């Protein structure tokens, strides 16, 4: 198990990725101590004027936003949202996708037919417009964004897990368990599930990345939770206030932060991919 966890450290790209992810987790954990200011506090200059779009300085290392909020503090607090969104979505997607895949692949027949039609349905629905629709239905909030993202993104892992289960179902150890009188549930979760686990983890890893990108996109379209200091929300506000070109300190950091995080997740995923598919090694 430990060897599995340390696997990404075997390559330079993996080491880089682990470093980035560890840094994000660390920053998120100590955000209040690390952030120089409250991310939602307005800052004023000595004369009492609002520090609107103030360029980076010693006091505000990444400058200020249109309403005089400290960009660096927002960036630091944004790590929390990224982790909450990434992990929650990944767990939800993992749970739904894995179970749909397991049940459909194992039982086959009508159950399989129905679940696969649902999966086709999920594939057929355009992702962002659907998320926007759900958020309109449920009101913009972080939790609703998470729910909306998860409601569609399980589709890929469900399909992949199902095809894995289809081949595992006919393997000797499953037949043996069945002959020994094991219940369906036991066979599914004790015998088959461990064998698809690497695949599940792989997809969960990629889902973290896609979920973070999706949250940023939803926020950018203006359907994010305006109370959150998410990186996507920062970009949205920079964009709608027309400050993209003027305030590079407000535009570049959140974009780079999202990209760095997503690249790191991709790279970790890639290292595990070699595990599930030895031919890639």
């Amino acid at each position, binding site marked *: 198990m430990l060897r599995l966890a340390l696997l990404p450290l075997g390559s330079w790209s993996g080491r880089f990725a682990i470093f980035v992810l560890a840094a994000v987790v660390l920053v998120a954990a100590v955000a209040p101590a690390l952030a120089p200011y409250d991310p939602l506090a307005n800052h004023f200059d000595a004369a009492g004027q609002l520090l609107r779009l103030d360029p980076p300085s010693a006091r505000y290392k990444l400058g200020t936003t249109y309403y005089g909020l400290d960009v660096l503090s927002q960036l630091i607090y944004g790590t929390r949202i990224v982790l909450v969104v990434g992990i929650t979505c990944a767990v939800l997607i993992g749970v739904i996708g894995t179970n749909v895949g397991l049940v459909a692949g194992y039982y086959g027949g009508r159950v399989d037919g129905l679940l696969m039609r649902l999966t086709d349905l999920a594939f057929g629905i355009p992702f962002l417009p659907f998320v926007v629709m759900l958020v309109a239905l449920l009101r913009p909030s972080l939790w609703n964004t998470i729910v909306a993202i998860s409601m569609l993104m399980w589709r890929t892992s469900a399909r992949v897990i199902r095809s894995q289960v289809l081949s595992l179902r006919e393997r000797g150890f499953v037949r043996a368990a069945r002959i020994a009188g094991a219940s369906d549930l036991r066979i599914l979760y004790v015998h088959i599930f461990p064998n698809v686990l690497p695949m599940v983890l792989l997809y969960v890893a990629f889902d973290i990345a896609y979920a973070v990108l999706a949250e940023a996109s939803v926020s950018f379209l203006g359907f994010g939770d305006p109370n959150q200091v998410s990186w996507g929300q920062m970009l949205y506000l920079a964009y709608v206030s027309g400050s993209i070109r003027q305030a590079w300190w407000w535009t570049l950091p959140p*974009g780079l932060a999202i990209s760095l995080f997503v690249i790191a997740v991709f790279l970790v995923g890639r290292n595990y991919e070699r595990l599930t598919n030895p031919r890639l090694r």
Partner: protein
Amino acid sequence: MAFWRYAGRRGLHTAVTLLLLVGFMFVLFRMIPGDPTTMMLGTGELPAEAQQRLRVLWGLDRPLWQQFIAYALNLLQGNLGMSFYFRRPVSEVIAPMLANTVLLMAPVVILAIVIGVAGGSWLGWRRGGRAEEIGAVLALIPRALPVFWTGIVLLALFAYQFRWFPIGGIREAFFFPENWWQRLPFFDITRHLVLPVATGVLASVADPLMIQRTALLEVRHEDFMVLARARGLSGRAQRRLARRNAILPVLTYSAIMVGFAFGGQVLLEVVFNWPGIGRLMVDSVTQRDYPVAQAAFLMMAAVVVFLNLLVDLAYGWLDPRIRGG
């Protein structure tokens, strides 16, 4: 015979999926709080009696199930209904936006697949080397950038800073060419296309690339490749053979990509002010213009589902083992 039975079954599945979709969309849109009759007024005023007249006119006063039956019957006759917001047939609203999106996304999809297959083949052939490691990481980077951010950065550089390309839109309203090359056909549209297409390709090239690479790596171990090597085929001939046999997964994927291209590129359309179907979809949702939103979602889903059907049938035709499962 077996193939036709398989085809029939898959066709039936497709029909069931589409039917589920129609029902699902219908119910979902009507769950969104908000009366469509209030949507056309912004913050203007509309007396309650006038609103009720509208509701009757638009058939919203009838029970939900009656509305659904009327909708489904119309749909079967190819009638998508009237847009609440535009008060025109939905097809008239959707068609020009769809054309604009195709104009934008066709080059994106084609370029992404061509570049992806070429790059993926190159990487796949150089497995394990440092070049491959770096190449694979490089290919992942644009995929990791939020597409709207890539677009903004490209705009900031090439439209605002260097002023090589326009800021957005699909064409300049009343463009007057100033010299011979501006007079070339499609000059105006082409220069409007460059940045959004570049952004789209950057965002979508990684997937076909990685798929092609993986497929190529897998193919290398197949018997026919071992045989080819044993028979002493030249490196170039070997590569060509491998590429041809590794192309299937990318073709499958391109079906998905075409589907996503129809509706998934709202962000490109927003950043580049491109009047396309993605923005129409999002707008019609917020405006409670159910007929347009439903039709757009449905059309998009139908494209995906049919492309999947085609791919499945192609596989079934080529590989008899699939027909059973």
